[in-house]
């Protein structure tokens, strides 16, 4: 080699003009990655069991991970918390959803209020926003049937939001009608949210995945239509896709936490 060491020259000048993220942002993304990995592992295994059993199982208070997330979910009752009661104008509710509807090509947009798109566990409306202080919804309609919808509901405080999620969980745990069968549900803590999910299965083999995710005083309710409600692989795949699609929305819900971002 030449009389100077090219490696030493390289080392002496190699650290210029880099663009590292701040360390706290690296950790935040790492935490999110860990939560998502854990959530997928829990969701895959649990729903597989739920589908195999075919009946509701005992309510699980927590699952996934609570490491570092508990501050988003509950206050200890000793601090006065001012809850955010308005949805930010730039809230990314449609993030991860298709940009246009399949049946007519119109754009998928967020609107105030909510018109239920799917039946709930007892054949009633899946979600009701009448007692919410603010709400925002988005609906995607597929090419032929089914689709996906989201509604973000903001309640007066954390207790009100938690009561709504608790009521949904109780309903999903006990109600099966002639029209629809709740194939199973679970309650977990994942991605910083208190989540209740269940699958409504129909005789045709169709299914709707319902997920209610609470962060602080806000609840994101989602329904996702899919085929193969009693197919383990189809349910797991739907769950994984839904987790990926809604990740940014759940991240943005930190503004409603007791210790907001």
């Amino acid at each position, binding site marked *: *080699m*030449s009389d100077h*060491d*090219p*490696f030493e*020259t*390289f*080392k002496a*000048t*190699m*650290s*210029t*003009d*880099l*663009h*590292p*993220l701040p*360390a*706290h942002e*690296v*950790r935040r*993304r*790492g*935490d999110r*990655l*860990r939560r998502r*990995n854990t959530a997928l592992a829990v969701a895959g295994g649990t729903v597989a069991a739920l589908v195999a059993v075919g009946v509701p199982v005992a309510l699980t208070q927590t699952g996934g991970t609570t490491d570092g997330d508990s501050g988003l979910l509950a206050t200890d009752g000793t601090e006065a918390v001012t809850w955010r009661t308005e949805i930010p104008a730039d809230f990314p509710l449609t993030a991860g959803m298709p940009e246009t509807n399949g049946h007519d090509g119109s754009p998928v947009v967020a609107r105030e209020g909510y018109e239920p798109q799917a039946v709930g566990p007892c054949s009633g409306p899946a979600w009701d926003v009448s007692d919410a202080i603010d709400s925002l919804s988005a609906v995607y309609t597929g090419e032929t049937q089914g689709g996906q919808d989201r509604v973000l509901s903001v309640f007066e405080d954390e207790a009100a939001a938690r009561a709504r999620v608790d009521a949904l969980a109780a309903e999903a745990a006990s109600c099966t009608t002639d029209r629809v069968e709740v194939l199973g549900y679970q309650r977990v803590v994942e991605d910083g949210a208190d989540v209740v999910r269940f699958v409504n299965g129909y005789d045709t083999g169709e299914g709707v995945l319902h997920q209610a995710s609470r962060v602080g005083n806000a609840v994101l309710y989602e329904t996702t239509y899919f085929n193969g409600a009693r197919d383990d692989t189809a349910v797991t795949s739907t769950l994984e896709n839904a987790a990926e699609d809604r*990740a*940014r929305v759940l991240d943005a819900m930190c503004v409603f936490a007791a210790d907001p971002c």
Partner: protein
Amino acid sequence: MDEVEFDDFYTSSYARVVGQVHAMIGSRDEAEECVQEAFVRAWAHRRSLDRAGHPEAWVRTTAYRLAVSRWRRVVKGRRPGDRALAAATTSAPPSEAHVALVAALKELPEAQRRALVLHHLADLPVHEVARETGVPEGTVKARLSRGRAALAALLTDPTTDTLPGGATSV
């Protein structure tokens, strides 16, 4: 590894690892993206990182594998967007020394290139290069010897003065 320890580790080793991975794969922007993602994974897996005992080697190896994996996806024409990464950046032009060394390294077989970078840029002794690359020490020594000879020829032979982009001056 707690938050303070991780932040110190990240701050002190980021530029060094980017430089090393840059030399291994030939693209600094790609190296920086992969190293950034590797640090995100390092924090996500910090418990196993603690057990591994060589956090910088863990990040470097992860970044290198990410780069190789990305390259394979690019070759297959289906590289997805990576949501975990920062917005794309454009780096300032590197120095002539950087260009010459990186261009010469790109001419070498991958195994020789990696051994040279780990030994001469990361300053790892032969036995640690062997551990990180998973081959016997004798193999590392052979790769270093052949790699150095080839590199010397590439860096001194005016007829093979490699230019950025793979062009060759005459």
